[in-house]
């Protein structure tokens, strides 16, 4: 941290000097003092139980934040019990822990103005804590109970299940939610990431399932901690060792093998009817994972195509033609599993097909010709110069470090990121577009009022209409 502070001082001094010059500079040609930015490091220690911990002390605020990342995820739940992981994630905190009833835990935590929260996503589980420094020890105790000793109170399980069912009942209220969900299902069809909780699957989940699911994955040898804020290092490590105990006998948790989603690209047109004045449009297909060396070229491609306010999609669909407020595209680079490419917009009913065709045309364009020097430079400059915004708070610095280890990124990922971005050439962007962008093989989801579309959707191919009432609990 100290070298970091020193680097900053140079900036002030130069800034002060340059302000003596009285002129107002031209934004197009302005020159700036050099800013030496070093990626802030977090300390990695290993607890007696073998758990890695990333630490970054920062005393600006009298607050401590902590996150445990657990190797677990909905990909490990049986399809017939889809919803098990997210229910387990919610109930860690919601269902009481360490013999303390949930109401009592709520009362104690909120009286201290502390928070402990838990959840399980597709390929990661997290339990997090935030607290004033003075209440850290007690909050840590509750945190560790939630993480390791949840009680899964039956009443709370029932409430959670009813809430999820009510959510399912409401899942078609917002057209944007319908389109996003259906696109995800279409892209990941046949893979656990494409499975969906339904009334039936959620109804099948019982307490024993959650106890087992938790017991299998939530073990000290299967998690990483990230801690930041106003702590004292030695007492903190002592406390953590007391909470998490000594060396673990049983060795590493063996995670089930989950295959990658099948690399199948086939156009599919999906329509859902909603009587609205604006159509929701989502299109996409499988993308790539972080282990692919092309991710840097794809990042540049992403920025130029639909990742910024001056991207091709925004420029044409929004700025030039006024067809949409929101238009964007994004390669979500998969960390464990193949990620996605998704393009999205919403446009008035009468310009639905026009907007779809325009977007597809813009995307085809990316696969045909090289981007311009100006586009390439703008993308590279942004990514390199804004890199430091990934490190603006101690909490984001430690959780980022922990996440990189969790997903097994190369050790020099952050340190080499800017160089690799700087090394991307126009040829690389074109090659990446040709390889990873398939505008004629999209899964396309359209939600709207087809009777008022500018052209029938069937102009684009054969359409499968969804029955939105199918998965609605009676």
């Amino acid at each position, binding site marked *: 941290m100290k070298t970091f502070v020193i680097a900053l001082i140079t900036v002030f001094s130069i800034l002060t000097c340059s302000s003596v010059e009285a002129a107002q500079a031209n934004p*197009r040609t302005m020159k700036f003092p050099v*800013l030496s930015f070093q990626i802030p490091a977090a300390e990695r220690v290993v607890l007696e139980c073998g758990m890695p911990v990333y630490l970054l002390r920062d005393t600006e605020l009298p607050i401590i934040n902590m996150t445990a990342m657990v190797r677990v995820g909905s990909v490990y739940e049986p399809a017939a019990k889809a919803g098990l992981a997210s229910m387990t994630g919610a109930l860690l905190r919601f269902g009481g822990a360490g013999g303390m009833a949930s109401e009592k835990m709520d009362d104690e935590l909120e009286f201290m103005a502390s928070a402990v929260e838990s959840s399980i996503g597709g390929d990661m589980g997290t339990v997090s804590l935030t607290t004033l420094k003075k209440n850290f020890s007690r909050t840590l105790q509750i945190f560790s109970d939630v993480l390791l000793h949840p009680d899964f109170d039956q009443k709370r399980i029932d409430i959670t299940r009813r809430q999820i069912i009510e959510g399912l009942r409401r899942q078609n209220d917002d057209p*944007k939610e319908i389109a996003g969900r259906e696109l995800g299902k279409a892209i990941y069809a046949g893979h656990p990431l494409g499975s969906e909780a339904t009334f039936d699957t959620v109804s099948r989940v019982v307490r024993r399932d959650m106890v087992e699911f938790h017991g299998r994955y939530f073990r000290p040898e299967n998690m990483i901690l990230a801690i930041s804020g106003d702590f004292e290092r030695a007492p903190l490590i002592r406390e953590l060792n007391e909470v998490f105990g000594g060396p673990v006998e049983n060795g590493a948790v063996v995670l089930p093998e989950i295959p990658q989603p099948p690399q199948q690209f086939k156009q599919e047109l999906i329509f859902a009817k909603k009587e609205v004045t604006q159509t929701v449009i989502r299109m996409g297909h499988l993308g790539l994972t972080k282990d692919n060396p092309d991710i840097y070229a794809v990042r540049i491609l992403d920025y130029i195509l639909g990742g910024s306010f001056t991207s091709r999609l925004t420029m044409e669909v929004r700025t030039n033609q006024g067809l949409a407020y929101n238009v964007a595209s994004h390669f979500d680079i998969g960390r464990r599993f193949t990620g996605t490419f998704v393009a999205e917009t919403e446009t008035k009913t009468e310009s639905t097909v026009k907007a779809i065709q325009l977007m597809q045309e813009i995307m085809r364009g990316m696969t045909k010709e090289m981007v311009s020097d100006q586009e390439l430079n703008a993308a590279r400059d942004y990514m390199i110069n804004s890199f430091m915004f990934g490190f603006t708070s101690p909490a984001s610095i430690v959780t980022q470090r922990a996440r990189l280890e969790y997903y097994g990124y190369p050790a020099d990922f952050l340190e080499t990121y800017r160089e690799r971005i700087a090394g991307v050439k126009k040829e690389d962007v074109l090659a990446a577009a040709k390889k990873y962008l398939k505008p004629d093989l999209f899964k396309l989801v359209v939600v709207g009022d087809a009777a008022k579309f500018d052209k029938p959707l069937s102009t684009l191919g054969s359409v499968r209409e969804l029955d939105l009432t199918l998965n609605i609990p009676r």
Partner: protein
Amino acid sequence: MKPLWLTALCIVIFSGALHAATLEEKVVEHTLKNGMKLLLVERHTSPTVSAWIRFRVGSVDERSDERGIAHLLEHMLFKGTTTLGTRDYAAEKPLLEKIEATALELMSEKAKREKGDKVKLSELEKRLASLEADASKYVIKDEFFEIYSKNGGTGYNAFTSRDGTTYLISLPSNKLELWAAIESDRLQNAVLREFYTERSVVMEERRRSYEADPESKLWETLVASSFLTHPYGQPTIGWMSDIENLTRTKAEQFFRSYYAPNNAIVAIVGDIDTKAVIAMADRYFGGIKPGKALPPVSAEEPKQAGERRIELIADAEPTVIMGFHKPAILAEDDYVFDVITMILGNSRTSRFYKELVIKKQIATDVGVFDAPGSRFPNLLVFSANPRTPHTVSELESAILAELERLKVEPVAERDLQRILNKLEYEEARRMGTNGGLARNLTEYEAVAGSWRYMTDYRRKVEKVTAADIQRVAREYFTRENRVVGFITKKGGDSK
């Protein structure tokens, strides 16, 4: 390290050692001669800085024929200046004038509706499109964005509310001068080019944010029904026909009337040297002439004299929103309402959560907030989804029962203490990000008259007693002061 830096270094380390300085100690306040207010905070956690400019003008300041202009103008102010966003302003300018003349003619023909001349309309539309195409040859699209981005700027954005309009960006700290150069140019030389295309974008924004989303549509209708006289009732984005009738002429007029340095509050938070920033701000903004003082909003909402009920029939599950009129920020009772908000909602120990979500399981969640602005008397709002098979009317009764309980049963001392503990944590937390702190400084300086609202807040809340809560509940949570909105599912019954 060279000795030159050493003094500065010592200062930084020393101030770092001053444990957890309060906000009061951290904010440097400075007003330029033209009235522009600067609020500066040094934070050296990362070499970044957030710069926010708040103009004391929002949709509440619009006349009835300008509804939506504050927001559309906010969009337009991203389009450049006489030197940025254009290849040749001298050549572009006459085209922009022709575009405006044609658009005005087109709109007045459209206003005749069925009596309008169809041939003339189509000719005007063609001429407008062709002029726009000609003008676009001179445009450098979104050049502000392009320049900020290539310099590493992130979060370049703006938002308009009833109460005000804010422009924000975060930059690497060595590039703050870029912000001063662009923003001072924008304030003096903005050119509202591409106006009519952007107006279409805003119509899409309206469809997306309000028309296609039943809950937002209900919300918009409820607010409009709550304020018959006061402009808080009108949606900031404007009704669709309002937007259709906005012109560049109106937007320019609005810009000239309100965007003056004396109506601006700037917060710069991050890795800065406050003295250098004051000098820089003076250099770039100091020469701008102050504008006229803002005319006050004269409309006053008459006291509501009976419950108002709004039903929206929609292709969506039932929901209920309930609002009660209440005073503006700074009124003594407003602090009592804040305590009531925290007693009733937004936490796992709140009454709505414990009673309605956990015990009765009648709702999936209950939100409590005040809206649609703070400068003027507003609403305390409860928003909830009933859990099937429970109905809107059961949920409504359950909410009202909790309000009755506030009137008769004094709130426990422990509940009040929990709120104060929460505020202690929040006071620390909100200093943790440049953007968050800049947001709060500009917002409270604008709506509460001073950012010190934040530093006084806990002391004010400390004074709120259980008896105050009972008094306020009795006075405001009445049938005649209530507005209720609910969604009935299409084909379902109104229950």
